[in-house]
């Protein structure tokens, strides 16, 4: 099976599993006391946000390796990861307000998760814009790698700064999985959901990577 086919298979599997997680979330997981049914979106929201960050971190790693190895496959992976990351970020940024309106009464709030995801979205958008503006393949790869590394350093710095200076952040701009006080069943649903999102991430990245490879081949051919 080609990468694209494997990717598609994974995505389909992932979506089916996502459906399963949803059934579990809606029917078999207890309803949260204060937030009611609307809290269920949490099981999509949090994993999507964490996956976005995962996409950025992997993008950064691929960028570092690219600068040393100059393998165009690493650049294509970075390109794929960035685009998929943006999709997941968009999911968070749209599901957030949907969740927020019934809970907080406003469409937008500067809570930790939304803020950090918005931030990641801007980083990824900048990355895409840079890629779009450079026509030469190897220059584009090099510039993207530089930006990718800066992005991942920034994300790391934010995390570290919150852990080192906890009192200073009235609105901590970091993603903290809010696990501590979840009952076991909710936690399980959350973990399952996260697993599903990772599967989806891998599937989407594989497909996107295949597209990038095909594009490169067309140019060479």
């Amino acid at each position, binding site marked *: 099976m080609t990468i694209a086919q494997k990717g598609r298979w994974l995505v389909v599997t992932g979506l089916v599993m996502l459906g399963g997680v949803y059934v579990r979330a809606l029917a078999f997981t207890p309803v949260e006391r204060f937030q009611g049914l609307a809290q269920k979106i949490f099981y999509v929201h949090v994993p999507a946000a964490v996956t976005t960050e995962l996409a950025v971190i992997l993008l950064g790693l691929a960028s570092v390796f690219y600068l040393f190895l100059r393998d165009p496959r690493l650049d294509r992976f970075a390109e794929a990861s960035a685009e998929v990351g943006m999709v997941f970020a968009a999911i968070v940024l749209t599901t957030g307000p949907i969740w927020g309106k019934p809970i907080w009464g406003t469409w937008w709030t500067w809570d930790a998760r939304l803020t950090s995801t918005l931030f990641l979205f801007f980083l990824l958008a*900048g990355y895409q814009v*840079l890629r779009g503006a450079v026509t030469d393949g190897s220059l584009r790869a090099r510039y993207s790698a530089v930006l990718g590394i*800066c992005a991942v350093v920034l994300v790391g710095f934010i995390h570290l700064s919150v852990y080192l200076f906890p009192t*200073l952040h009235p609105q901590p701009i970091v993603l903290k999985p809010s696990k501590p006080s979840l009952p076991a069943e909710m936690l399980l649903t959350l973990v399952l959901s996260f697993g599903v999102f990772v599967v989806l991430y891998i599937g989407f990245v594989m497909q996107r990577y295949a597209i990038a490879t095909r594009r490169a081949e067309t140019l060479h051919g």
Partner: protein
Amino acid sequence: MGELVRQAWTIARKDLTLEFRSRTAIVSALVFTALVLTVFNFGRDPTAVSTLDLAPSILWVTFTFAAMLALNRAFQLELDNQALEGLLISPLDRRSLYWGKLLANLVFVAVVEAVGLPLFVLFFNVPVGNALLPLLAVIALATLGFVAVGTLFSAMVVRTRFAELMLPVLLLPFLLLPLTYAVQATARLLDGRPLSEVAGWLRLLAAYDIVFLAVASWLFPYTVEE
């Protein structure tokens, strides 16, 4: 090491000579800063929100835009003069090019800030008082952070289409961090808070500067090699 410093200084001195001889860029930047501060004045309703609440944001938004103007010209200068290729053919160490440009950018932005800060204090009746020295420290550290990353990105952006638009798009997410720290620190300083409350923000700014100076100077050669 000494050679690196000397080369960086040669670059910086050349840039500053050119900048202050033609004066166009620096004058534009100064006028721009004054205009932005004026716009903020007309944009606010003094009865609704106290100036002092807004002041830190006003100052830092202004400085951020001024820094971006400065950053754009750094490598545009080389392109305009068709000299970048010559710099790369010469034995100039790529890192020296980064540090030289960084230094020139810092001086340029410092000049703009040296005019902008008094204007800000004047326009908005800001009670700086004892906080002046710590405030200058905040400004220095934040500016260093802006310019460290900005110098790197401006080298990349100069060879793309729509360079002036691309730089803010790429750079602003990275500036949000030192910007936030600077605004928080400035707010507390103008509020008359003791230095101990501000120290944490200063340390964060310093940490940001160290990390990104290191990363940017390491990455810079990759942006100019062909």
